[in-house]
């Protein structure tokens, strides 16, 4: 298991208490799980993602990541409609372990309410939470 200071948390992303990340790009938001989450889960063997066009509220479950250890839900950091999913994860779920913020991204949504992003944790707040765990 990595120490917190060995984990990578890019600046400019927002983070949730459930260890998802969200990155806004105009009215679109890209979503995945954090380096901490993938390190805790271990080898990810399967990622279950929603269909294009599905809408979810903030905090709603939109998929699962299955590691050797367990099946874990992933929750929407902000509400919106799914406009893109990372198809590569069907054949290469290990990309979530290898590159959680890059090739391991999960879905992209059109956000309903851009103010919701501001309610998420900054890198500093997320790190603070992890240190308190």
């Amino acid at each position, binding site marked *: *298991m990595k120490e917190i200071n060995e984990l990578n948390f890019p600046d400019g992303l927002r983070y949730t208490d459930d260890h998802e990340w969200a990155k806004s790009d105009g009215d679109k938001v890209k979503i995945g799980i954090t380096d901490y989450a993938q*390190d*805790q889960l271990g*080898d990810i063997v399967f990622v279950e993602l929603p269909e294009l066009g599905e809408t979810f509220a903030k905090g709603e479950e939109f998929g*699962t990541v*299955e590691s*050797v*250890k367990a*099946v874990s*839900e992933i929750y929407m950091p902000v509400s919106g409609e799914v406009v893109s999913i990372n198809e590569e994860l069907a054949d290469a779920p290990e990309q979530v372990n290898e590159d959680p913020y890059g090739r391991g991204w999960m879905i992209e949504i059109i956000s309903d309410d851009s103010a919701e992003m501001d309610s998420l944790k900054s890198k500093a707040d997320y790190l603070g939470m992890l240190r308190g765990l």
Partner: protein
Amino acid sequence: MKQEIRKTLLYDWHVEQGANMANFGGYEMPLWYPSGVRNEHLAVLTNAGMFDTSHMAMVRITGPDAYDLLQLCFTKDLNACLGINKKIALKNNRCVYGAFLNEQGEVIDDAIVYQVEKGHYLSVVNAGMGGEIARHLAAHKRGRNVEITDLTDKVGKLDIQGPLSAKILMKVLADPGKVFEKMPYFSFKGHFDPSCPSANAVCLTDGTPILLSRTGYTGEFGFEIFIAPEHFVRLWKMIFNAGKEYGLISCGLAARDSLRGGAVLPLSHQDIGHWPFINNPWPFALPYNEDQTDFTKSFIGDEALRNIVDFEFTYAFAGHDLRKVSAEDPAIVLNAEAKEIGTVLTCVTDMGIGRHKDRIYSVASPDKPKDFKPKGLCCGFVKVTSMLSFGEVVELRDKRRKVKVAIVEDIRPDRTARVPIKNMI
């Protein structure tokens, strides 16, 4: 009362390697190392892996009536447990798998019993169970002339498992040719206690005596090694370094769990436990007679097993892809008529197997399809209230998903545990 978390002698080594640690059986143990559990699982199928199993406990049973006490408390019939027809009595340097039951026929723990010599037995039990099994034996000792010693934390234990295990051990053993001569599955040689007459049968190149047992809990070819604690970390590092050229890696409990699941081996207190030890995939652990109508001996729990009214059945299953359900949820089992018939005991992914046409292949199958790259299959055990037949499909359901699986007799094919040692060196 807060349980004190114990550490094995390798704790610092595991942490240095960056292992993901967790509490198991009261010990802080590695779940996996940074290369990941898939690598670890596959290494044991194709090369070799080593496991710190020194959290497991050992009980020594000695004295003129030791055999008699074990005949009473252990499920295997020690008078008839070896040979093709299971008619030969346990002998020196052989060990057998069975369980200790209570009067209700329920499992206290499963165990391997080793006969060092007449009147000297070792029983290896699960983490934290040394005291309980020692007390159980002592409670049934009555007038017998037996000494029972709980050796918990007094013996170092590691497992090396996988087809290249013997080749690796050849580099660290003194006189390996002699050691590996006539060493079938479920036999052992040597002793970790230098004062034991058989101790010099297996020594490391530096002269340290070990007990080398051709057993393990992965279903693959390999060994369990017992050694005095003061030599344990050195032995671990010796084997780890010797194995590098053979692709040996250290493996955690997660790989051990997925490997044993695919090999249809039960985890004590999860797949066997406080319910009668019968109608499960492990009838070989009970002393059945030839036509399976009765037992060949009396033992603690036998009456209860003979007189069961509410039958439950434990079966192995294999899924059609790698998706699991969470057995902790708990997950339920539904039959073809969508009637709830039981619960899921274990659900893991064996990452070395996959389906092709109508059967399961392993990465180690000699006849596997060309370019076979399995993603793994979910597998494990269910306990149900109705009898099922092999091939029957049931549905497992947790709060999140439904998975259709087949009841099976066996899961991972082409396991190497029983391959003759001469083919492996």
